[in-house]
């Protein structure tokens, strides 16, 4: 088992606040956070007993031995080697780490890996059927729903989860909570995708891709 490179560090709000105004907190962007990741040295290693945990990722079991501090995101990236899920802010603010757990989208950076034994975890690597892309993946290419691409795996996993929430009839902030059916307008897509930040601001094409894919999934 490869030892975790760095489980205890990450961008901190404290670091973000240093040398800037407190308002930065609300606007913490993935780009700001990356700078802090590289700028901070790992914290001193402290003993933490490891725990055996089996994660089921894209229908395949992975037996791991983890420090309980390991987030689901770090388990995927650093221990299983699936780097499709991205680390942006590491604080649940940017959505780059979005994966599906039992079909529902979550921020994998804000969840402990040891809490997910027995769950069905789906990452961006598990969406395609062989060489055939998932309709949401294909639509992101057709509509050029990205620029740098860093937020894209999270956007795509989030969109897949979001469309299943729409099919289940879940309401949103911009709709009428008493309505039985959801009409997936662009305003609905934007609201429902607000947990995924794109710092290239490819939003118009992301919305177009999701609108298109919503008719195919």
């Amino acid at each position, binding site marked *: 088992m490869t030892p975790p490179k760095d489980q205890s560090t990450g961008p901190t709000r404290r670091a973000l606040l240093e040398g800037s105004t407190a308002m930065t907190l609300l606007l913490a962007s993935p780009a700001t956070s990356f700078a802090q990741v590289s700028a901070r040295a790992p914290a001193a290693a402290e003993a933490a007993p490891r725990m055996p945990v089996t994660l089921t990722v894209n229908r395949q079991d992975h037996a791991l031995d983890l420090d309980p501090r390991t987030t689901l995101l770090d388990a995927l990236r650093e221990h299983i080697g699936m780097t499709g899920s991205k680390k942006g802010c590491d604080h649940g603010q940017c959505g780059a780490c979005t994966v599906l757990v039992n079909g529902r989208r979550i921020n994998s950076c804000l*969840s402990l890996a040891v809490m997910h034994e027995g769950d069905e975890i789906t990452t961006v690597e598990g969406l395609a059927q062989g060489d055939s892309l998932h309709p949401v993946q294909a639509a992101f290419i057709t509509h050029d729903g990205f620029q740098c691409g860093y937020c894209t795996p999270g956007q795509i996993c989030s969109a897949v989860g979001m469309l299943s929430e729409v099919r289940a009839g879940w309401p949103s902030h911009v709709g009428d909570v008493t309505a039985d059916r959801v009409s997936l307008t662009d305003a609905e897509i934007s609201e429902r995708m607000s947990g995924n930040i794109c710092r290239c601001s490819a939003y118009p094409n992301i919305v177009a891709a999701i609108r298109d894919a919503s008719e195919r999934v």
Partner: protein
Amino acid sequence: MKPFTYERAKSIGDAVAAVAAKPGAKFISGGTNLLDLMKLEVETPSHLVDISRLPLNRIEDMPDGGVRIGAQVSNSVLAGDPRIRRKYPVLSQALLAGASGQLRNKASTGGNLLQRTRCYYFYDRTMPCNKREPGSGCSALEGFNRIHAVLGTSDACIAAHPSDMAVAMTALDARIEIVGPSGTTRVIPISELHRLPGKTPQIDNSLANGEMIVAVVLPPPPAGKQVYRKVRDRASYAFALVSVAAIVDSAAGRIRDARIAMGGIAPKPWRLNETEQMLQAALASDRTFSQAADAAMTNARGFGQNDFKMPLAIRTLRVTLGMLSNQT
């Protein structure tokens, strides 16, 4: 993150006993707030008891027409439940106005109630904060305090409570079911769950060590129209600057009954008892709503950057009351 040990609780009894037995132990459910704070070492539990798989994830109809919401029901499931949407739309609206789709899928009902303030200085370990480190001082009093409270504050702390859900539940007179380490259950009104900072801002709520929220019980929906109105810096995915959960029953131009709670302006969901009394049997007019809204802010005090919250709260309250009684 500080090291900790972890266990998955097999029963409610196991869970409360495990936390009560170990100093420094905490419950974890969705973890969206706790893990965030642990990464910053604002929270440093030595042991985590995972209660997310306990059988507390049902929404049950009560014989009196109310509902009982298990503490492990996720925010998104609660917001989407057809009974909640039909009978308690203010609660669905409040939940959907908070956080993001991903966070709502993970955040639990009990955890939402117990989430901690988003005061910048509480998160910033290089700065004094009486809530994080009692006795160190409050940096917000004369610092960046745009998001802070204007009611219920103390010289020790002016942090605001961040929850939208709890504001709606406060207007709905929710009751909180709590199980203690000895296995006994007690029920308190939501108004007695969160506490004001006073001289001990480090204590957010009235739960004793080892006590766990197992359910939130809503009485039958009160008569009248319900709405949650939230004012924030962005259209989505931002905490409230000011929010109002209101239920107004009116007929023939008169208000029969009003229940109002506000968020973003106080250290706890802020029920407007006196304003509600003023509205009782009053004419449903803009004059009435203006007077009631002004009265709600009589004791408010700003700290500079958050002074705008007082007029904003008054206007938000006035327009919300007008909307609910068709007298805009």
